[in-house]
């Protein structure tokens, strides 16, 4: 297991920093150009959610390894208002129809594994993994 690197998200420019860090780690693990771009986009979506809906939060990256595969794990944590209807925000068309981009369903598509925990008034934690093929 590698060590965790985190980046705090407070202003819009922090999203760029998070993308860069995510891409660098993905590159080091050995992801190709297309997957690097997908991972960077997923980071963007997660970081932008923090920037837009929670006052602050962070995105953490980690290179992970099992017996037979390697991958990148990303965790986005915020202490924002939480998501009251998770099924709704995970619905296709919900985010795009509001002009908010790919949203969480997009992140789920870009990555291989996706988990979300959210408590009202306490915040949201999104954990996601992409495996190297």
């Amino acid at each position, binding site marked *: 297991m590698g060590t965790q690197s985190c980046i705090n998200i407070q202003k819009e420019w922090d999203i760029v920093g998070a993308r860069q860090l995510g891409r660098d780690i993905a590159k080091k693990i050995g992801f190709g*150009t*297309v997957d690097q771009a*997908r991972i960077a986009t997923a980071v963007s979506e997660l970081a932008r959610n923090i920037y837009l809906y929670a006052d602050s939060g962070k995105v953490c990256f980690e290179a992970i390894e099992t017996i037979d595969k390697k991958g990148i794990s990303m965790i986005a944590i915020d202490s924002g208002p939480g998501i009251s209807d998770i099924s709704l925000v995970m619905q*296709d*068309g919900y985010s*795009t129809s509001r002009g908010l*981009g*790919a949203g969480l369903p997009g992140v789920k*598509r870009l990555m291989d594994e996706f988990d979300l925990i959210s408590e009202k008034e306490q915040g949201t934690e999104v954990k996601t993994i992409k495996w190297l093929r």
Partner: protein
Amino acid sequence: MGNVIDLDAKNYKSLLKNYIETQDEKFLYRAEQISKSFLKNNILPEEIVNLHMQALDELYPSLSGEFQRSMNFLLETMISYGLAHQEFQTLREEQLALKSQIAVAASMQDTLLATSKPNIEGLDIGVISVPANQMNGDYHHFIESNDGSIGIALADVIGKGVPAALCMSMIKYSMDSFPENAMQPKSILENLNRVVERNVDPSMFITMFYAQYQPKDNKLHYASAGHEPGFYYNAKRDKFEEIEAKGLVLGVSLDAKYHQYNLHINKDDMIILLTDGVTECRQGERFIEREEVLNVIRDHAHLSAQEMVDRVYKYFQRLQNFQLRDDFTLIILRKDV
């Protein structure tokens, strides 16, 4: 899927090379076919850009660094399109699933609301009812009583589609629960009004025309709950008149009362009942006036009642470019003895 892209990658590279060297149209035609194959196999745009980058790198290793970086930039801009494409696919599948559910509901509705045209000697009946979407918010029903009279119910729920259709089933079951005989049009409307008022959303309402025809004395008894007025054709005077019947729509006021009217029907007279889908037809920005319906009926008065309603429907369907805006129901009764 991996196989498809590997196979296409080889193909793509050789086609690209051939095209760059000859600029022959046939290679562009092959590119078009590859494009379709990509789409069919859900190959995303960023993967295609990547394929292009790899092919170029193998064919022309000495291309400038600036050019290669520009391709990276292009790939990045394709990611959201790829996501949108995937989302579109999922939504399309969901839409198909929904459509088939609605089709099942529509066929259930057809069974539930089925009614058959009664065979009454001396009375020629024509009916057509077509929903704008899959489910019909118009309702018509014929009831034959033991005393030889027939009841004709015609109703229109505000709005259309599934909510309207659900509401119609309620009307049908309430009517079924009324005693077989001795129900006057006005009491039927008064009873239904209470059912609707108690059971539907405040912004929902239903209009209904209920008529009872007694062949023994050639009398039509009728009452209307805010329904689009029908027409009476007086054969002797060769004139259409609006059937006047006042009454509040169902579901607005619990204690609404309905007035009952009578009409004596002679040979060749016609009763024309309709829902507002018939008269609210629009041709572009132009509204179709009610008189237009009558003109079409008059033009086809030599035909049977069923042929007449079919002709009117076809006429308005064409006027609206074959896309109904609202459910359409038309009933014509003609006394032919």
